[in-house]
């Protein structure tokens, strides 16, 4: 977008915010409509597509076998990767992950990992030798803003939908057994991002807002009301007061979403 258009749009957005309104008619603390479809990729061990307004994220989960890390011989391995697929935006280019997709993957990873929502020890088949390796691939299909929340939601929905093949170790050999077991998901972190535009805090910024936004702050929180991951982004700043306000907003929205999603 040209610099002039950005400035005009920026002014317009600020004026609306002064009146407690947003371009798309939401209130400052309203989340866009959420739609979750699970099991959309039958060939993957788990999958979910999330629509957050027009933002569309597909997450596929593949479960493979591998070796554990030497310092956690009894735990499975979780890998989160994000692709900003070029179908999603004229600004995405094909190629190896850039800083934006790496940050996205790492923030989603942190929410999952730090909430300890997966019972990692149940992913161990033979301690120190064979464990399940869970690949969570985030595929952003349409970028209409707030990729972090949409991706975190899609990743959790896909993990909740994931099944693992059954294995047993017999005479030192690994054998596949009949049937599947659901991935052991113990809790459900909810990730809420708040944006700041000229002093106003707004929830779930969409793309027009992101383009004029000072900064954002993301909180992943658990069922018990504790915080498990935070990420500030963007070229602006927050006052300590705004940070605390954003944390409260995130906790409130999480409660609201848990009810809606029954998580």
């Amino acid at each position, binding site marked *: 977008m040209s610099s002039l258009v950005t400035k005009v749009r920026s002014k317009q957005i600020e004026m609306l915010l002064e009146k407690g309104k947003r371009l798309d008619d939401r209130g400052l603390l309203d989340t866009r409509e959420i739609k979750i479809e699970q099991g959309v990729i039958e060939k993957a061990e788990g999958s979910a597509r999330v629509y957050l307004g*027009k933002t569309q994220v597909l997450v596929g989960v593949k479960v493979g076998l591998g070796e554990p890390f030497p310092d956690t011989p009894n735990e499975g391995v979780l890998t989160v990767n994000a692709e900003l697929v070029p179908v999603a935006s004229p600004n995405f280019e094909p190629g190896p992950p850039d800083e934006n997709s790496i940050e996205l993957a790492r923030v989603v990873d942190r929410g999952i990992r730090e909430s300890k929502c997966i019972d990692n020890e149940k992913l161990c088949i033979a301690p120190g030798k064979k464990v399940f390796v869970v690949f969570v691939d985030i595929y952003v299909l349409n970028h209409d803003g707030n990729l972090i929340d949409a991706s975190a939601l899609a990743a959790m929905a896909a993990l909740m939908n994931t099944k693992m093949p059954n294995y047993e170790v017999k005479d030192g050999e690994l054998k596949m057994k009949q049937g599947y077991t659901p991935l052991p998901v113990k809790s459900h972190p909810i990730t809420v991002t708040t944006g700041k535009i000229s002093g106003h805090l707004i929830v779930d910024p969409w793309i027009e807002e992101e383009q004029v936004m000072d900064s954002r702050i993301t909180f992943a929180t658990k069922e018990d009301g504790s915080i498990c991951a935070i990420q500030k982004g963007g070229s602006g700043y927050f006052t300590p007061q705004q940070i605390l306000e954003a944390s409260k907003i995130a906790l409130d929205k999480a409660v609201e979403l848990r009810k809606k999603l029954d998580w």
Partner: protein
Amino acid sequence: MNEKPDKLIDKKGIRTDGRKADELRSVKLQVGVLSHADGSAYIEHGKNKILAAAFGPREVHPKHLMQADRMVLKVRYHMAPFSVQERKSPAPSRREVELSKVIKESLEPALFLELYPRTGVDVFIEVLQADGGTRCAAITAAALAIADAGVPMRDLVVGCAAGKIDDTVVLDLYDAEDKLGAADLPVAYMPSLNAITLLQMDGSLEPAEFEKAVGMAIEGCKKIYEMQKEALKTKYMVVKEVEE
């Protein structure tokens, strides 16, 4: 994974997924599915699930690829890591590089490249789930995405494979037939120009079988072509209704 069946096609001419020799898989097409692309389309061809987006005509990037006397079409065929049995690295494989090239060359004959010098059209194809015949389904979707972007075309391009399983020439192989069958022959075609724009084959075909397979693939293309036109119409009808 699964055991190889004794036969891929039984005495009655029925294939392992219940189809007859010259029967297409179900095809579902949707146009205009992505709000940030200039054009887009989604195809479910059997269990293949593929998304295509077109951007342009726009500036060519990087600039040194710009052509003074023609439009530059770039195509990327890419498979999602979760689209296949074993997780695929997102880095492009040699197979994906080759398919991107032949798909590009299958679409170029449909475009008036020389009429739009110094511009570019980029087509991005994402295979979300693969089940045999992805390049053909990708072409079908890519042509729709380009049309949806408003880029003038001589004709739509449509893809469909034929091949040989056991001793029978059949239409539109799915994954297991592709892997266990005797030959796979993907074709892309512009029906109103009677032009074959992609043709590949691997396996083993007698010349007579080859001729039969080409004919069968073309018939398959023609059927899907009707759905393509319908999908485009539907989208614009819907748009029209909304506008009223």
